[in-house]
C-alpha cells in the first residue's frame, strides 16, 4: 500500500505494482459501478415529451414550473398530485429572460408550454407552491404521468439578486 518506490534497490517490486494495480482497479470499479447505478438524465419536459419511449424505463430528472392551482394533497394515501410546465434548463436563457422568478412566471402563464402531470408519494414539501421550480426524479409512465420518487424544490425568492 505504500506508494514510495524503493528506487535504491533497483529491482522491480512486483508485489507493489500488482498491489497498486489491484487497488486502482477496485477504486475505479467502485466509482464506475456507483455512478452507473445512480445516474440519471436531467432533461426538460420538451425533451421528455419529444421522445418518451427513449426514457420509458429509465430514471430521469425533470425540472419544471409548478402550476399553483393544480396541487392536490391527499393525506389519506399520503400523495401529492400536481402539474408542471416546461421551462428552459439553460442558465443563460433564464438570465436573459429576466431571472428565474420571471422565467417561472412565464412558463406557468404560457398556455402553449408543454405540461406533465406528476404524482409524488410522500409529504407535501413546504416549498411546493405556485411558480416554484420543481426538480423531479422518477419515471415517466405509459399513462403519461410522471411518478416522482424524489422531489426537490426551489423558491424563486432565492433567485433574486440582491442590489442589482
Amino acid at each position: 500500500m505504500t506508494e514510495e518506490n524503493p528506487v535504491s534497490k533497483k529491482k522491480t517490486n512486483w508485489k507493489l505494482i500488482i498491489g497498486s494495480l489491484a487497488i486502482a482497479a477496485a477504486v475505479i470499479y467502485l466509482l464506475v459501478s456507483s455512478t452507473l447505478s445512480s445516474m440519471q438524465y436531467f432533461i426538460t419536459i420538451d425533451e421528455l415529451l419529444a421522445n418518451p419511449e427513449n426514457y420509458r424505463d429509465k430514471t430521469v430528472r425533470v425540472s419544471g414550473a409548478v402550476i399553483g392551482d393544480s396541487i392536490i394533497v391527499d393525506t389519506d394515501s399520503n400523495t401529492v398530485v400536481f402539474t408542471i410546465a416546461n421551462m428552459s434548463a439553460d442558465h443563460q436563457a433564464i438570465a436573459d429572460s429576466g431571472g428565474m422568478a420571471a422565467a417561472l412566471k412565464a412558463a406557468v402563464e404560457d398556455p402553449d408550454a408543454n405540461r406533465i402531470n406528476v404524482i409524488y408519494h410522500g409529504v407535501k414539501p413546504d416549498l411546493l407552491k405556485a411558480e416554484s421550480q420543481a426538480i423531479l426524479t422518477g419515471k415517466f409512465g405509459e399513462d403519461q404521468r410522471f411518478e416522482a420518487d424524489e422531489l426537490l424544490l426551489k423558491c424563486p425568492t432565492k433567485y433574486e439578486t440582491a442590489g442589482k
Partner: protein
Amino acid sequence: MIVTLGYASMLFAFFAAVYGILAIIIGQVSHSKVWLRSGKQACLVLFPLLSVATGALLTLLIRNDYQVDYVFKTVNNFQPLYLKISALWGKQSGSLLFWSWLFSLFLFIWALRTDPEKDRLFPTAAIFLLANLAFTSVLHIWIDNPFVRYWQTGDFGTAILSIFPAGTKIPEIPSDGMGMNPLLRHFGMVYHPPALYLGFIAVFFSAAFEISGLIHSPSDDSWMKKARPWTIFTWIFLAVGLILGSRWAYDVLGWGGYWGWDPVEVGALIPFLLMTAYLHAVIGHHATGRFRRWASVLSLLTYGSIVFAVFVTRSGLISSVHAFSASPVSSFLSVYLAATLLLIVILLLTRRQAFKETEKETELSFAEKLQTKESLFTAGILLLCIISVFCLWGILLPTISELISGTQITIGVDYYEKSTGPLFALLLLVMGLIPLTNWKKPLSRKQWITFGILALVAAISVLAFRTINNLPGILLPVVLWVLLFSVLTVLYAWGSTVIANSRSGSKKASPGLIRFFASYLVHAGIILMAFGIIGIEFLQIEEPVKLIPNESLSVAGFDLTLTGSEAAWTDEGDTLATTVEIHQNGKLLGTVRPHQNYYTTYCQQTTIPGVHSSLSGDVYLIMTGSQSSSPDAERTFTVFYNPWVTWLWIGSIVLCLGGLLLFFGSLRKPKVSANVAAN
C-alpha cells in the same frame, strides 16, 4: 450618513489593501525596511476600516432601515435581534462583506505577531493575503454592494437602486421588510455560517506560509510549524461548521435526516477530508521525516478545495438547494477559482524538487513494511484523497456530462452512499489498526497477539449483540465489528500509555502527552459519531401515521397519543402546533410539539419536527400535508425512529473538545517529544 460611512470605509479598505501590496513589493525589491513596515501597517489598518463598514451594515439592520435594499430583503419589523444580527450574512453581498471583515481580523492578528524585517516568509505571504482580501472587496464594493438604497423615480410603484441619491433624489422607504427566508430563521443561522467562514478563511493563512516558503526557500519546511495553529483552527471550525449544519437540518428542515449530500455540503466536506489527510501527513513527517511530499501537496490541495467550495456556494453555477443564486458575482468567482488553480499547478510544477523525500526509507521487506505505522498512515491518507475525488466527481459530473454530451447527467444521494460508504468503513478500520502499530518497525509478537485478542473480543461481542437485538443482514454486523474493534484499540492505546506514564513516574503531564490524549479524544469522538451514523443509516424506521385526538397508536414500539392542537395567528402568518405524548410499555417518555408555521410574505410553510431524544434513539415527528385549524381534527404525521443518532451529537462534542485541546496545545512553543510521537 451611515450608508456613506460604510461605503467609504469599504473603499478605503480596498485601497489600503492595494497600497499594502505595492508597498511590500517596493520594500522587497529595494530592500527597504520602511516600505515593508508600511506594508505591515496596511495589513493592520484593514480590520478597523472593515469593522466600521460591517458595523454600519449591522446598524442599518438593527434600525430596520428599509431604504437599503439589503435590509429590506433580510429583516422585517418582527424579527428578533439575533436574526437581525445574523442577517449580516443572510444574503450574498452582506456575507461577502462579513467574509472580508473576518479575513481582516485574522490578518490583523497575524500581522501584529509578525516582524516584517525578520520573518522571511512575511512579504510574499502578506501579498498573497492582501490580494485575496482585495478580491472579495472588489465584489462587495463594485459587483454586489450591500449598501445600495431605493430612490423614487417619480412613477408610482417603481424605485431606482443606487448608493447615492438618484432619480428624484427622494428616498423610497418601505414600511416593512421581507424578512429572512423562513428556512433560515433558526438559531443555527447564528453560528453555522460564521463557523464555516472561520474554517475557510484560516486556510488562506496556512496556504500563505506554504506558498511563501515554496517560493523563497523550497528546501526549508519550517512553514509547516508556522502553519500548525492555523491548520488545526481550520480543521476544528470546518468540523464545527459541518456538524452545526447537520444539526440545523435535523432540527428544522424536517426530512428526518442530517446530511443530504447536496453539492454545497459536499463542497465543504472535501476540504475537511483533505485537511484531515494533511494533518496526518504532518504527524507522519514529524515522526519519520518522510511524508513531506504528501504534506506539501495536500496543503495546497486543501487551499484549492476551499476556493472551490466558495465557488460552489457563491457562484450559483452548480445547482444546489442551498447555494446563493447565479449573479454577476459568478463570472468573477470563476476567474478567481481559475487563478487559484493555476497558482497551485505552477507551484506544483516549478517546485517539484521541494516535494522530494529527503529521508531514506527503512530497510524492511515488503511484508514487514506493510505492518508499519507509515503504511497505515499512507493508506488512511490515500483513502481520504479517494473519498475527496469521489465527492468532487459527484459535484462535477452534471457539468462535465453537459459539456460533453449536451444532456445533463446527475447522480443522487445513493451515488455518494454506495461509493464512499465502503471507503469510510475501511478508513475506520485503518484508524482502529493504527494504535497497535509502530513507526519504522513491523509488529512485534506481543502486538500480533493483542491484535488477535481485540479482534476476537469485538467479533464475539458483535455476534452476541446481533442475537440479542435481532439485527438484520451481514453488512451491519461487519461494520459494527470494525467500529468496536476501533473502540477497543483506542482504549488499549489509552490504557497502555497511562500505565507506561505512571511507571516512568513523571508527575507532570508533558505537552506531548496532552497532545496524545487530545488526538485520541478526537478519534473517540469520530467513533461515537460513526456509531450514530450507522444507527440512522442502517436502522431508521419511517412510517406515515394518522392520529385521532386522545387515541393512542403504536409505531416502532412507541405509543403515540395526540393530546392537543393549537392554531395561532402571528404578525407574519399563522402557526399550528400539536402536542403528542410518547409512551413506551405504559410509561410516559415525554411530550413533543411538532408544528407548522406559515409565512405570509414568502407564501411559505415550514415544518418544525417534534423530537424526543434518548441515548437509544430519537422519536422524530413531522406534521404533514395541509391541516385543519380545528382543535379536534385528526392529524397526519410522518414518524421516524432514528436509533443511536444521539451518539452522533455526543461524538461531535467530544471531537470538538479534543480539537480545542489540540489547538491550544499548538499555540505553545513545542518542545520535541519523541517519546510520545513513538506511540
